[in-house]
């Protein structure tokens, strides 16, 4: 039984599987099979498979697709967009998939486009991913030559073109409505929802935006079926997932593992545990905008709802570990500086609130904070909570702050009472810099 559908073509060498190798290894079989099915049946299959969005939100992918208007009177032009704007601090899974097996993503996009009836698709890739973008462009050329893309695919009336759109920086572009504005050639500012992109997205047309890893799940799910896919997961959630660990572990990296793999197994077995002389103090389970978990949570399985109930989010599934010699206040300050700088400036609580939080954290980290500052920081998290802004950037920024204030409360207090950072880390109070 195939247990590593996402990485089976990925070897040790940093090369991408070309289309011949990809097809020799069952590549584009899912696309052929999907093309022989009714689009509605594909949507049902993906829904039943229980594939949840791997970008971080964990929404059922088939259900997301099902909101696209279908039938004779629906808009003729629809779009599929691959969100390849991986920029979450601590996330490094989509780069791997795009650089090393670009055809898997192309195949997933072809099936998605066919299921919702889109004849155009874009890969919205961050401008810094030069290698991934050029490998994807090469893969698209190859797929066209093999008539997997282009006009009248498999001698049918279905045609599809996929284009690579290289973006030019800015974390907010990963938010799907900001992404749509960016792709339309505007400033990447989030839109109000509803209407949701599935109804009114790119240029007002029905649009599905899916993450790279989500789309890479589609080909094998269609080819090998719902039962196989569900059995890949160990617990509640179906399928496999790229999990990763960064920070001061012995063997940082990314591995395809069953959904529901316990955190402890990922950190201790796959990442080799902490470096000698260091203890695990806490972890961000899925990127910089997820709440910290403590060592009490190590036996939790990495399933969306389990991690959600523990007070955090599985997010991207790439874990950042915090060791006992690294200052938690410094790390939270670093994350908050990131979110403050990446705020698009559209909503006041985010534009003004995050730099304010940075200032408070700078005071505490440099030893100039007071106990009132700790209270102020808590209040600040409430002011940028969900519902106060158009998108989830500011609420996401609040997650590591609010959880750190609880889990590492003593560290915050020590900074205030000692009037210095007990960890003696290098100054982290680099001012926000403007791009040229």
């Amino acid at each position: 039984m195939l247990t590593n559908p996402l990485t089976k073509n990925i070897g040790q060498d940093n090369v991408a599987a070309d289309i011949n190798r990809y097809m020799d290894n069952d590549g584009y079989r899912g696309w052929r099979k999907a093309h022989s099915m009714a689009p509605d049946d594909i949507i049902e299959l993906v829904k039943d498979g229980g594939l949840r969005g791997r970008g971080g939100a964990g929404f059922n992918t088939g259900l997301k697709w099902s909101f696209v208007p279908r039938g004779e009177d629906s808009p003729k032009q629809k779009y599929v967009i691959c969100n390849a704007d991986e920029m979450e601090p601590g996330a490094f899974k989509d780069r791997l998939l795009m650089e090393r097996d670009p055809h898997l993503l192309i195949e997933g996009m072809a099936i998605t486009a066919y299921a919702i009836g889109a004849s155009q698709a874009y890969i919205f890739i961050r401008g810094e991913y030069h290698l991934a973008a050029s490998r994807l462009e090469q893969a698209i050329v190859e797929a066209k030559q093999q008539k997997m893309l282009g006009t009248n695919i498999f001698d049918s009336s279905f045609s599809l073109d996929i284009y690579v759109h290289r973006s030019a920086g800015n974390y907010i572009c990963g938010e799907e409505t900001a992404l749509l504005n960016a792709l339309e050639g505007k400033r990447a500012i989030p839109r109000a929802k509803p209407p949701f992109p599935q109804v009114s997205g790119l240029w007002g047309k029905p649009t599905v935006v899916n993450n790279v890893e989500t789309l890479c799940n589609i080909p094998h799910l269609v080819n090998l079926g719902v039962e196989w896919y569900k059995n890949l997961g160990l617990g509640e959630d179906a399928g496999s997932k790229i999990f990763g660990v960064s920070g001061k572990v012995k063997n940082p990296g990314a591995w395809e593992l069953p959904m529901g793999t316990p955190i402890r197994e990922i950190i201790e077995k796959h990442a080799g545990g902490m470096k000698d002389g260091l203890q695990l103090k806490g972890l961000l389970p899925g990127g910089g905008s997820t709440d910290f978990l403590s060592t009490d949570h190590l036996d939790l399985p990495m399933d969306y709802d389990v991690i959600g109930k523990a007070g955090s989010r599985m997010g991207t599934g790439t874990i950042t570990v915090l060791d006992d010699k690294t200052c938690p206040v410094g790390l939270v300050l670093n994350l908050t500086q990131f979110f403050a700088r990446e705020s698009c400036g559209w909503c006041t609580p985010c534009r003004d609130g995050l730099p304010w939080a940075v200032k408070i954290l700078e005071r505490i980290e440099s030893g100039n904070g007071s106990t009132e500052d700790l209270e102020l920081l808590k209040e600040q998290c409430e002011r940028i909570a969900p519902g106060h802004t158009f998108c989830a950037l500011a609420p996401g920024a609040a997650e590591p702050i609010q959880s750190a204030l609880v889990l590492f409360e003593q560290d915050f207090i020590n900074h205030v009472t000692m009037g210095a950072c007990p960890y003696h880390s290098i100054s982290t109070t680099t001012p926000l810099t403007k791009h040229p």
Partner: protein
Amino acid sequence: MSSLLEPELIEVMEHSNSDSEDNQAALSAQEKEEIDQEATHYQQRFPVGLEALRIVQKHRGWISDETIQAISDYLDIPVAELESVATYFQLIFRQPVGKEVIYLCKSSSCWIMGCDHLQKTISDRLMIKPGETSEDGIFTLLETPCLGDCDKAPVLMLGEEMHRNLDENSINALIDKKKKYYADKSSD
């Protein structure tokens, strides 16, 4: 130490770039061809604007007011619209930058693995802070959002090339290599 905001430096940069086609208003045939190619990907004009900015910057190093005007004329997109996009995106430069842009990842995993120390190494060596260009006009140092290579932290991107698992020695070696390249080039 020279800030990008100092007009003297901008003058220096403009002068040093004048032997290439920088700041010449009209788009070159090559630039137009590349823009036309990207334009086939869209049914609308507007999205081609960012692509054009990216393409022209690749050839000229940065986007001057004259360049914006030239793209505006070519694509029939209002200057204000292009300007709003050009000033929004981090990878579009509205001021001159060095020949080599160092994108230093400052996000969480790289921070844990010591990117502040790397920044100090670079800043001390080149006498520039993030956002500034070295006096010889070779290097610009920029802080960048997570580069998505966190298991190999700390990392930076030099131009389009990733450099991973960095320490003080490898950073210095990298700077030496680039300095030598430009020294050899100018003595040719």
